[in-house]
């Protein structure tokens, strides 16, 4: 069995070396394709940590989580900081089969769960939802914890999307800001047709942000 796996690995390497197009399938591809247009156009770096900040409760961060889940053809994990995910809200309940839902009550548990799942490396995408964690508790997550998560993501090539109400991750590959507050008339639209306005910080290295680049994307 081990010999067969070795042979397949060798074959993969051979094909990747000979045919450039095979590279797009190989793990060396740098962009993680979520299947959600507005995210894929931004280019979510594989093996990175990306923060989505929506100050308003109805900013559309939940919409991103649902769209990523609906479009995912692979297993992914949702670490739910306050256990608020509603499985019945999802249009296609089949895609729940791809979801590992980790319900937490405290931020510290959520970070611990993220650490383990990143270290594990089996699931290529991990969503960490900290939107409804109280501000004080969120602030108690140490900077070193975020650095550790970032290092783990890079090491195991797992993409981590963090959802917060305020900027909490000290160093991210991308920080995306939701600046919309949806009105009640959003319920007149089909979910996949909602237009999402995302603002991307070009170099979210530290707390001092550079001028923001505005990008409007249709979902």
């Amino acid at each position: 069995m081990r010999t067969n796996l070795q042979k397949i690995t060798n074959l993969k390497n051979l094909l990747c070396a000979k045919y450039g197009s095979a590279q797009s399938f190989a793990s060396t591809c740098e962009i993680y394709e979520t299947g959600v247009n507005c995210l894929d156009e931004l280019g979510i770096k594989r093996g990175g940590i990306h923060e989505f900040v929506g100050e308003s409760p109805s900013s559309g961060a939940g919409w991103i989580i649902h769209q990523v889940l609906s479009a995912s053809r692979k297993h992914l994990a949702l670490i739910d900081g306050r256990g608020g995910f509603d499985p019945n809200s999802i249009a296609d309940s089949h895609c729940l089969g791809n979801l590992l839902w980790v319900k937490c009550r405290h931020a510290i548990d959520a970070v611990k769960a993220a650490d383990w799942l990143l270290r594990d490396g089996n699931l290529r995408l991990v969503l960490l939802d900290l939107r409804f964690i109280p501000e004080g508790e969120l602030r108690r997550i140490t900077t070193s914890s975020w650095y550790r998560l970032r290092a783990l993501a890079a090491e195991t090539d797992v993409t981590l999307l963090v959802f917060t109400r305020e900027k909490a991750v000290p160093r991210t590959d991308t920080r995306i800001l939701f600046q919309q507050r949806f009105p009640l008339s959003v319920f007149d639209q089909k979910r996949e047709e909602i237009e999402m306005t995302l603002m991307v910080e070009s170099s979210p290295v530290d707390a001092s942000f550079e001028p923001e680049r505005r990008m409007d994307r249709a979902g």
Partner: protein
Amino acid sequence: MFAVIYLPDFFLQAQCRDSYKAAPMALVETDVLSGEKKDSKARIVALNGAARESHIHVGMTAAQGQARYGKLTVLTRSKEIEQATSELLLRLANEFTPYFELSGPGICTLDLMRARCTDHGWELGWQIVEELAAAHSLRAQVGFAKTPDLALMIAKQADPVRSVTGDGEDEFLRQLPVTALNPPVDMAMVLNLWGIETVGDFFALPGGDVADRLGAEAFDLWERVTGRKSRLLHLVRSPKEFSQMLDFDDEIHAVEPLLFSLRRVLEALCFSLREAWQTAGEIHLQLFFPKNAAEYEHHFRVPDPTTDVELLFRILHAHLENFVTKAPVIGLRLKIIPARSTKRQSRLFESSLVDSNRFAETLARLEALLGSENVGIPECLDSHRPDSFRMMPFRENNVEPVEIKPPQKVALGLPLCRFRPPVFAEVTLCPKNQHPFKIRSAVVEGIIKELRGPWSVSGDWWRGTGAGNHEARWSRVEWDVEISHPKSGGLYRLVCEKKSEWKLEGVYA
């Protein structure tokens, strides 16, 4: 193809290994009742070639043997040593195939149909002979043929390895004396009278006539010699479960010594599993406490069956890391239920889970931290009751990703993010139309800018009003509201289940 490992003069070889040929030797049965090791009346049960040349026969007493040859070495038979040698032979056979039989004392038949065997088994044969000679000082002969009986005959003639296939079979049988078939005495006499001296002569007889004149037993022998009939092997089977129990001399109060002992047991069991060509599918752990305390039991499923000690130990370790007990541990029992190793088509460029066992270990840690009810795959229930779902464990059966199909229903607007439990709210109603007008809660506070509703929903009313059904019935009025507040304003779901008892069920995010 079948292979037979044959240890000539097995009883003597088992006793004195490769020195059995050196001088005339005889083996006598121990007289257990008399308690004397070398009873002068004890009968000879086995001889080596040198002893036979000295006209000593099986059945003679040791004294008669020594009368024929004064320097005859008489050894006492030890069934324990013979048993150990047989086990050694089986263990060696097990290294090459899981399908083998102990055909007799010092005879082991291997079914190589499903094993890779090139060059008609020569390399394999020499490997067996050399290993037995080097490691155990045993002289073996190995024969290869298409049937077990033929392989045995070839092994007895081998020097020390012989493989007979195709046309070589006829040639080999033609020269082989008919006595090599060990025919019954009466049949041997008839064959002798007919002038049948070799197996080839016997083989040349018409099968129907052999059956008519010598009976069914002779016909059976004829068919086996000609290869028309092959007997089934009585395979040596591995046990169905592998378990080991450990009683501690001293009570164990900490997890480290417990893990140390568990690892030791696990290593032994994995060794046995590997020998039996099996992998661990499930692990059952039992911990025993002093008299008053009930034993602790836990079953672990191994998603990708394996015999990797490190991996299996990590599964146990992850579970016992947070294990707390009121009483010290006085013993343990570890049982492994074997399973066939998973055969999975390796995908060329992607796979669902790279390492199922590692993932199971991570899941176990998450479950230990958060509780098994908080980790898994959500499954919506066939009900309109709000928030009705159940958590299914993420197991090996569902590691393959689910294929995305067109949505079953059209979803509108933003998805709901629930408050679990719902948040109580004080709601001021508009005097005109009795619609919610203002809200005050721990989550949000403000004027309701816009709303949609009310939607009256109910269910399980058909269950009646009997005891126990009262809680099953549900009825509520729902509103979707847009609350204006600079920071926490947004779209919320407001619910009224009982009169004037309002709750915020979640936020549309």
